[in-house]
């Protein structure tokens, strides 16, 4: 499993190399980096990175860690669909800002043509931001939540 420092180190190496695009895939981990992501179309919004690169880990890989940012770790939509914060309309949301999550905590549902897919946090920490609107279309890779990892 990669640590945050590993990811930062990879990004630093990419920044120094004359690479335009990089794809790393190992078991349980995939990293796709596109230089110049800021000029990419507005959706999905590229996550802010140190340096000139934009990077996102692919949540499709089963054990992929969520993408770290300076502010925290982003939980991205593992698929395109309709984003639901609660089990049913009017029910209590799975998580609110301030909630503690474990890697297997369900944070939301994504519906794809009547199929409900539950999305686990995949990291432990505290929800500090909800980035998507309930019942809206979310795209593959779109940020859904920001999680503050426990310090230290």
């Amino acid at each position, binding site marked *: 499993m990669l640590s945050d420092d590993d990811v930062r180190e990879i990004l630093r190496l990419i920044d120094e190399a004359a690479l335009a695009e990089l794809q790393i895939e190992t078991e349980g981990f995939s990293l796709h980096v596109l230089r110049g992501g800021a*000029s990419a179309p507005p959706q999905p919004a590229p996550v802010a990175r140190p340096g000139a690169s934009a990077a996102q880990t692919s949540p499709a890989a089963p054990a992929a860690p969520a993408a770290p940012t300076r502010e925290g770790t982003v939980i991205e939509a593992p698929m395109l669909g309709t984003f639901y914060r609660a089990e049913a309309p009017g029910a209590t949301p799975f998580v609110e800002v301030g909630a503690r999550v474990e890697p297997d905590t369900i944070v939301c549902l994504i519906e*794809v043509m009547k199929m409900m897919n539950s999305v686990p946090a995949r990291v432990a920490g505290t929800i500090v931001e909800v980035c998507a609107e309930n019942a809206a279309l979310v795209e593959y890779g779109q940020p859904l939540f920001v999680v503050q990892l426990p310090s230290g």
Partner: protein
Amino acid sequence: MSLARVFIANRGEIAVRIVAACRAAGLECVVGASQADLDGLAARQADRVVCIGPPPASESYLRVETIVAAALGSGCDAIHPGYGFLSESARLASAAREHGLVFVGPPAEAIELAGDKLRARAAAAAAELPVVEGRELADAADARRFAREHGHPLMLKAAGGGGGRGIKLVRDSDELDTAYAVATAEALAAFGDPRLYAERFVAAARHVEVQVAADEHGSVVHLGERDCSVQRRYQKLVEEAPAPALAQDTREALRAAAVRLARSIGYRNLGTVEFILDAATGSFYFLEVNCRIQVEHPVTEAVTGRDLVLEQLEVAGGRPLSFAQEEVAFDGHAIEARLTAEDPERSFMPSPGRLTRFAPPQLAGLRVDTHCHDGAVIPPYYDSLMAKLIAHGDDREAATALLLEALEALEVEGVQTNRALLAGVLAHPDFASAAITTRWLEEEAIAA
């Protein structure tokens, strides 16, 4: 219903082409792009891009549920599937319809019929189109029986195949049992349908196809034919309109047959009826129906002056075709060459990568359909088509010369391409004399 916003469920040059047609029709468009195509030309040009999934097509462009959810979620009222991917998916056509979306193509029933090559053959025969001697095979023994009746070589074809896939040539009886077993297994794996049928092999065959269009108001027309005989492994490389070296009565019979079939199966929107033409006898036989816009549609657009993708959108929106059969006129000759990122030196291995330079020339009569530009990336996940160069001239000679000039002047660096092969075909004396059959490229040109 009239359309307002179209979801484009495709990528590459055809997505760019559909964006242009949406603009011409005054429609908004949303491009559904995989992660690998988010920065592609179509995504940049569209009103909006929606990321439908990771790069592999099986997790993005081939997902019916995702495409429908993306179209609905982005407020579209229609889905244009382009070619390839889900363009001939009856499941997408009916899922779209169930959710109140217009599928830009024929009804699901027509796609289902055309997709089952045995049913399509039967429908063609019922509409009095000539079909090659052939039938469904029950088992290997039945295949041997067919071989005794009709001799070798013969073709084994998958009922669920089409578009050049799922075809096996069996040259003699020693190969038959093995070929039957392999073809059955392949058909099951590739199409989920193990049924095979046999056809007599037409040794010197040309591929000639007729463009048809049909609207909701009972109009069914043809827009002439194309010759697509320059093929490698049943995949087209160079196409032209009109078909050269064709007797006028054959040409008219082909066109009439295509319209007859389209009418008899309740076809709607744009489609192509493919035939093989026996170069030795001049007889033609029904091959299959393609329920989509074809890669090679620009040659027909060039000689007829019609915008076929725009026509698709108008018809899908319920409007009548903008022209009647009598108004379809033909002007000159057009030839298309498919530029692919493949390395001819390495048995046409795909050659993905970043284009450090891509600049097609600007010449009178030349049209270039492409998603490529300086700095564009040809991703490794999809087919290798980079650009279509279409030359339109007063006659076949002029179109050939223009296309050769264009290929010569094209600047492309960063990936290997088949440019030299294309130029070699166009400059070949056999091409000049239109003595091309579907096996010519592999047996004569590449071997030589």
